[in-house]
């Protein structure tokens, strides 16, 4: 099973490495959103300081939408889904592999974005372990939920428009939890970031399990 997970994740990441979509399109888009937030808030320092964590995670959610769309379209073009089914790979392994590939790309963008908020928003990292743990826990939750819902809308024409309305409300706890944990890690608000980390981890676990269980049904029946 784990071999298959690495296989699928490796396949998606290899396609990504060769096409450079995340690097040449998603990453500039993410930085652009950071700049736009700066314009929208009139580069008002106190407001930007207070809102840095929230803006960071909103940007990550936008990036997640594009990453999931991309990950899904890899399987829908040229009927690759059928081929994946015929390959005899366990659906749960396909799910974990694809989620892992999305998570790796998200983490890559997030690391650059952290640099972005340090430079553009003048943020300072006060707790490095909390920052890293939050990035990991939140990203697992986002990637798992996104991969599951991406597969759910894979076969339909309106998938670009329906994915945000499905994914974003469900990710509300991640936005709230990761923002609060970041507030602690960046020292912008007095909250217990580690408590929020527990919630993020719980969210991630539920979605990894649900996704692994439901992915096969979606792959075969829709």
């Amino acid at each position, binding site marked *: 099973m784990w071999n298959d997970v690495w296989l699928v994740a490796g396949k998606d990441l290899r396609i990504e490495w060769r096409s450079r979509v995340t690097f040449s399109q998603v990453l500039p888009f993410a930085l652009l959103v950071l700049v736009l937030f700066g314009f929208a808030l009139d580069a008002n320092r106190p407001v930007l300081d207070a809102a840095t964590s929230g803006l960071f995670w909103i940007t990550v959610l936008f990036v997640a939408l594009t990453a999931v769309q991309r990950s899904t379209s890899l399987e829908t073009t040229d009927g690759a889904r059928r081929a994946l089914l015929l390959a005899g790979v366990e659906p749960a392994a396909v799910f974990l592999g694809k989620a892992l590939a999305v998570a790796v790309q998200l983490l890559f963008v997030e690391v650059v974005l952290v640099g972005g908020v340090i430079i553009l928003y003048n943020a300072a990292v006060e707790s490095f372990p909390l920052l890293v743990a939050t990035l990991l826990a939140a990203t697992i939750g986002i990637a798992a*939920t996104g991969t*599951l*819902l991406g597969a*759910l*809308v894979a*076969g*339909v*024409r*309106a998938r670009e428009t*329906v994915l945000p*309305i*499905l994914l974003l*409300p*469900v990710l*509300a*706890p991640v936005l*709230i*939890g990761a923002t*609060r944990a970041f507030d602690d890690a960046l020292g912008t608000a007095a909250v217990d970031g580690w*408590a*929020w980390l527990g*919630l993020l981890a*719980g*969210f991630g676990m*539920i*979605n990894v399990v*649900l996704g692994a269980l*439901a992915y096969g*049904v*979606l792959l075969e*029946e*829709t």
Partner: protein
Amino acid sequence: MESDIVEHTGSRTTRLLGASVFVGLVALVLLGFFVAPPDDDQLDAVRMIFIHVPSAIFTYVAFVTTAIGSVMWLLRRSIWWDTVAGAAAEIGVLFCGLTLFTGSVWGRPTWNTYWDWGDVRLVTTLILFLMMIGYLSVRSLGGSVEATATRAAVVGVLGAALLPIINRSVEWWENNTLHQKSSLTDGKLEGMTLFTLFVGIVVWGLFFAWSLIHRFRISWLERELRTTDLDQALRDRRAEGHRV
């Protein structure tokens, strides 16, 4: 084929239900506006709970029905349960919207604000509302009956599984809450106000049952129509073939 044509989705039971809903609504309006006294603190705004609380209760009843229907589809592939889940979700969205609307209208004179971000139930209900709109949009995506049912069921189960964690996150997010503790259990309501509230709950329950049955029958007929249309089209094509 003439006898197969269905002209309406009513039956004796639904007509009886519909009539009781109508009578109940008239009674509720009379009780709510003329018999129940104004509240000491909230004055006339208290009358909003006769709609707000029943709507909130049946929002949850509807969405629990949808969650059960979703699980039953995944376990048994029962199209009956899938149709129930879809019908309940539509009515649930209606009730949920009504809950949010009446809540904000009530909040304006009572809390002096339409919306309060610090209120857990308010924010959770709004997220639930948006999630269920997502569920309904999945149902309307098209494709085969089975594929639609499976997609919708996965969204339904996911929503039900995540709702507690959403509620928890909102609760932690803002620890202070303006929202009244459950009005029914804290014993503050009494006399005609309490009685009217119970009438409201009963009427809303009857309305829920009535609209659920009708919506279920419409969905069922829609599905039958699609399959008979296909069968008819096939027969027509075959008949053309024979003529040559």
